[in-house]
C-alpha cells in the first residue's frame, strides 16, 4: 500500500505542503528584522491557547489561533509603543504564555497524549476540518505576502527610509506579527507548538548561506521548508516518529550542509 493511499497521510501531506511554504515565507521577514526567536514566544502563548480550549471545551485550534495572534501583536506593540527591547517583550510573552498554559492545562486536567500531539505534532490527528483551516488561512497568508512582498522587502531593508517616504512601517510590522501568530496556530498539528518556530527560521538561515539575492533567498527558503516537511512526514510515517522532530531535524541538516558548503567555497 502506498503512503498516499492512507487518508490521514494525504491530509498530512496537503496541510504540510502549505505549512512548509507559509512558515519560511513569514519567517523570512522575521529573520531579516532580527526577530528569529519571536516564533518561540508565540508558540508558548499558543500552548496557553490550546490549554484554554481544553478548559472551556472549545476547539483548541481556534483558541490557539486567537492566543498566537494576540501574543504576536502584543510583542510588536510593546516594541514599538514603549521601546521595550525586543528580547524583553519576547520574554514577557514567552513566560506568561507557558505559565498560563501550565495553569490552564492543570485546571482542565488535560495533561495527556492528545496534548503532546499539539506540542510535537502528529500526522494521525490531521482531520478534514484541520486541513480546511490550514488551507484557507495558509493560502490567504501566502497571498498576502505575495501582494505585499515589495513593501515588506523595502521596510526590512531600510525601516527609517521607508518611514520617511510614507510606507506604513508600523502597520506592516503588526501585519507580519499577526501572520506569525496565524502560521504557528495552523502549523501546530503538523510540526507542533514547540518546534514550529524552527521551521520559520532554519530554512531561511540555510537559504541565506547559498543564495545570491533577496529573491533567491526567499524562494530557496520556501523550497527547503517544503522539502523538509514532505520528507519529514515520510520519515515519520515509515519510522513511527513524531513528525515535528523529523521535519526540524531535516531543516537543521539542510542548514548545517548549507553553512558547511558556504565555508568550503569561501576557502
Amino acid at each position, binding site marked *: 500500500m502506498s503512503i498516499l493511499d492512507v487518508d490521514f497521510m494525504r491530509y498530512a501531506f496537503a496541510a504540510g505542503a502549505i505549512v512548509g511554504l507559509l512558515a519560511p515565507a513569514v519567517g523570512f521577514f522575521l*529573520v*531579516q528584522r532580527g526577530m528569529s526567536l519571536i516564533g518561540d514566544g508565540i508558540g508558548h502563548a499558543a500552548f496557553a491557547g490550546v490549554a484554554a480550549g481544553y478548559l472551556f471545551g472549545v476547539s483548541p485550534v481556534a483558541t490557539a489561533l486567537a492566543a498566537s495572534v494576540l501574543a504576536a501583536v502584543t510583542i510588536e506593540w510593546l516594541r514599538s509603543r514603549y521601546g521595550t527591547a525586543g528580547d524583553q517583550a519576547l520574554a514577557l510573552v514567552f513566560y506568561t504564555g507557558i505559565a498560563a498554559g501550565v495553569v490552564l492545562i492543570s485546571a482542565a486536567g488535560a495533561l495527556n497524549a492528545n496534548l503532546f500531539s499539539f506540542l510535537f505534532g502528529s500526522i494521525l490527528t490531521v482531520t478534514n476540518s484541520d486541513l480546511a483551516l490550514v488551507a484557507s488561512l495558509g493560502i490567504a497568508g501566502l497571498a498576502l505576502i505575495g501582494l505585499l512582498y515589495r513593501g515588506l522587502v*523595502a521596510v*526590512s531593508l*531600510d525601516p527609517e527610509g521607508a518611514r*520617511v*517616504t510614507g510606507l506604513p512601517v508600523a502597520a506592516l510590522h503588526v501585519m507580519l506579527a499577526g501572520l506569525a501568530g496565524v502560521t504557528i496556530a495552523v502549523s501546530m498539528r503538523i510540526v507542533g507548538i514547540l518546534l514550529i518556530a524552527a521551521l520559520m527560521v532554519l530554512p531561511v538561515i540555510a537559504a541565506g548561506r547559498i*543564495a545570491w*539575492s533577496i529573491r533567491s533567498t526567499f524562494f530557496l527558503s520556501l523550497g527547503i521548508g517544503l522539502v523538509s516537511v514532505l520528507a519529514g512526514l515520510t520519515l515519520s510515517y515509515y519510522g513511527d516518529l513524531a513528525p515535528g522532530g523529523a521535519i526540524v531535524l531535516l531543516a537543521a541538516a539542510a542548514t548545517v550542509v548549507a553553512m558547511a558548503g558556504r565555508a568550503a567555497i569561501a576557502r
Partner: protein
Amino acid sequence: MQLAVSLRDLSFSYPGGPPVLRDVDLDVPVGQFVGIAGPNGGGKTTLVRLALGLERPTAGEALLFGQPANRFEDRVRLGYLAQRALLGIEAPVTVHELVSAGRVPRRGLVRPFGAADRAAVHGAIERVGLHERANTPIHRLSGGQRQRAHIAKALAGEPDLLVLDEPTAGVDVEAQDAFAQLLEELQVELGATILYVSHEFGAVERFVERLVLVSGGILFDGPPSALPGHWHDPSHVHP
C-alpha cells in the same frame, strides 16, 4: 519663493537632557543645494530628522513644502539616506533589489511595478554608474559603490527633496570627490533640493550654494566663500 524646508524658532532636547538645538531658523528654497556641517554631536542629524518629521520639536515648528513636517502626507516627494546607511537585512541584496525598494513608495504598496517604475529603477542605477553591477550583491561592492547604490535607491523614488546624512562616512577621499561630482550633476539635471550633512565637508564645499554650520544652533549661514577662516574646517567649530 517656494520653500522645501522651513524651521521656525525650533528647539529640541531629548527627555531629561540638555538642549540639542536652540532657536533654529532655517529656510531652504526649492532647488537649493545646501551643505549642513558642524562638529560631531552638534545637532546636524537632529536638525534634518526634525526637518523630515522624524522627531518632534520641543518648541517651534518644522515645515515641509509648507505643511507641518510630522503631518506631511506627500512623503513620496522625499528621499533620505540615513547616517551610516546599512542594510537592515541578513540576506544578500543585489544593487537592483536595493534600488527597486526605493521605488515602492512612489508606486504604492500593492500595485505591481509598471514600465515607468522599471525605467526609473534602471535610470537611477545608470545615473550612479552601477549599471554593469546591477545584479551584484551589495556586500561585494567597494564602500564608494555601496554609497552610490544607496543614492540610486533614494533617486528611484524621483524625490523633490533629497536628504543625505553623512553619506561618505568611511569612504576614501577619491570616492568622496566622485560622489560630490555626482551630486552636483544630479542637482543640475534634476533640480532637486539637496540637504547634505557632513562633518568632513571639503569634498562638496565647492559645489554647494549655501553652507549652514550647526553646533547647538546655527552659527553660520551663507555661501562657502563667506565662511570665516577660523571656521573653515567645520568639524572643529566651537561656538
